[in-house]
């Protein structure tokens, strides 16, 4: 009996589960959400009434298809769904899963990780104020809870989500005060030939942006978030011509495209490489998603191709798994993936990480939100301990907080590299440590009964 476990029930995890179930396997699917869908196709709690068209816009049919596919597999008992469960550690072929009943072991033979992505963040002085959120948070608040983050919201950063969230908030009647894009229009225009790989998506984005009118500004520099004890009061920025501007606000949502969530991949043994195009470390894998012995990666956690790419990558990872098991499998479709890669490269070039701005942040700027560690403290620790990320972490506590560096690591790297004149790759990466999520001590004290081990049923 082969035990295949999938982590994540977004588009990649759902298509992987479907592919394995069609081949007669009964995979375990571990997911943090209460209902499958992932972030982009996240479903509101039971009892909410907005139809899919108002939640997912042009992507409603895809969302409905994915949700229906997954719910059907669960109802037929063809997959073992473990919602509201987090993998906190991986060791010796066993996942340690924190779920509603506590900490349970889940042994596996093959592991498919579809852990998705988070917003990629760049610190802005003052971003530690309550009322500063990630861009993704603004979308989740609206989609899953029907709320806006404030009455006058500034959306700032770069990437496709910036325009999309602004349009969604406006359509829902939220007060959007400004949409500030740090990507210059020139970079965006130069990426158009690559973005033309998906003409419909590109045109839809441009039309959305046109409707934002003067709210949208490209090529801006974000200077600081002014806040009182209550939260943000204004965002200070410079326009593309360098003129100082000020936008009063009570909430700020920041994000620069996405960052692959690689924590579990690293714990499972994947090799990570710094990719300057994406300004982040990404796991190495073959085109099918093989990343190690019995380890497969799919979706935005492997490569930021977006939801459509994640569906394809999820199928491919499952097919790779079936191939390696010597089981019958459908033919892999690598051609569509290549087109999506072209488009994704276009996005990365059009909406780059503001590395130079981050490197130039003043010493007083808080970089690690969790621990309140400033750029000055990071530079100081690099000056006497060297610019290696893990050493800087132990000396300065930067990146040692609750988020485990998810939201500061990229900025820390850029700051260390610039301060010491090395390439970001040379500054190294903060090692992923278990637990991947905070773990109450009580959960470790209770020994689970053997009957509670999460055991996939293998081949049916």
């Amino acid at each position, binding site marked *: 009996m082969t035990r295949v476990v999938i982590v994540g029930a977004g588009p990649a995890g759902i298509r992987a589960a479907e592919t394995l179930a069609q081949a007669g396997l009964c995979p375990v699917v571990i997911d943090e959400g209460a209902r499958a869908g992932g972030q982009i196709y996240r479903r509101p709690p039971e009892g909410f009434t907005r139809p899919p068209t108002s939640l997912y816009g042009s992507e409603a049919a895809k969302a409905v298809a994915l949700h229906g596919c997954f719910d059907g597999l669960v109802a037929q008992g063809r997959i073992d769904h473990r919602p509201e469960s987090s993998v906190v550690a991986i060791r010796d072929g066993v996942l340690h899963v924190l779920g509603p009943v506590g900490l349970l072991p889940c042994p596996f033979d093959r592991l498919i990780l579809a852990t998705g992505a988070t917003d990629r963040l760049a610190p802005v002085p003052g971003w530690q104020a309550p*009322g500063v959120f990630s861009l993704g948070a603004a979308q989740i608040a609206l989609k899953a809870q029907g709320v806006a983050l404030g009455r006058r919201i500034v959306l700032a950063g770069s990437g496709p989500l910036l325009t999309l969230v602004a349009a969604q908030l406006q359509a829902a009647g939220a007060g959007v005060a400004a949409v500030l894009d740090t990507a210059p229009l020139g970079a965006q225009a130069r990426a158009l030939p690559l973005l033309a790989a998906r003409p419909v998506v590109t045109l839809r984005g441009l039309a959305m942006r046109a409707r934002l009118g003067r709210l949208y500004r490209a090529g801006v520099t974000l200077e600081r978030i002014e806040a009182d004890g209550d*939260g943000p009061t204004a965002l200070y920025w410079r326009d593309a011509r360098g003129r100082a501007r000020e936008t009063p606000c009570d909430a700020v949502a920041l994000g620069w495209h996405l960052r692959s969530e690689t924590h579990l991949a690293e714990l499972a043994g994947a090799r990570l490489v710094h990719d300057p195009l994406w300004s982040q470390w990404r796991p190495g894998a073959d085109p099918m998603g093989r990343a190690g012995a019995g380890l497969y990666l799919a979706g935005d956690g492997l490569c930021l191709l977006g939801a459509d790419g994640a569906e394809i990558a999820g199928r491919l990872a499952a097919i790779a798994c079936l191939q390696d098991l010597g089981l019958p499998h459908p033919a892999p479709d690598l051609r569509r993936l290549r087109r999506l890669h072209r488009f994704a490269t276009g996005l990365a070039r059009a909406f780059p990480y503001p590395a130079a701005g981050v490197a130039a942040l003043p010493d007083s700027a808080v970089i690690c939100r969790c621990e309140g560690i400033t750029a000055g403290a990071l530079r100081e620790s690099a000056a006497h301990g060297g610019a290696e990320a893990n050493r800087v972490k132990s000396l300065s506590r930067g990146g040692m907080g609750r988020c485990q560096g998810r939201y500061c690591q990229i900025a820390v790297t850029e700051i260390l590299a610039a301060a010491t004149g090395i390439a970001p790759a040379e500054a190294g990466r903060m090692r992923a440590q278990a637990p991947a999520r905070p773990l109450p001590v009580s959960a470790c004290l209770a020994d689970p009964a053997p009957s509670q081990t999460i055991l996939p049923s293998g081949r049916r």
Partner: protein
Amino acid sequence: MTGRLVRLAEKGRLPVRFTLDGSPFQALAGDTVLTAVLTSARSLRAGDAGPERRAGFCLMGACQDCWIWQEDGPRLRACSTPVAPGMRLLSQPPESWP
């Protein structure tokens, strides 16, 4: 005290009563603890790594910025815990906390 979050849709749900620092508040069934608190208050809890109070950041369980205390029982990750009737939440550690 006006809330930080503004309700735009899904307002027809049943009310849920809870307390924050002993004062009664009302949320809607299906709200997360974060939504429930921040539609009535400006933040979830006092600051720990600086003077700034905390109000969550990612809303997807990744940043761990949104912990909140209860009068009894464990701390809750507010963005991914549904509010339940009768919850007694605290923006400061309970007095019994060592």
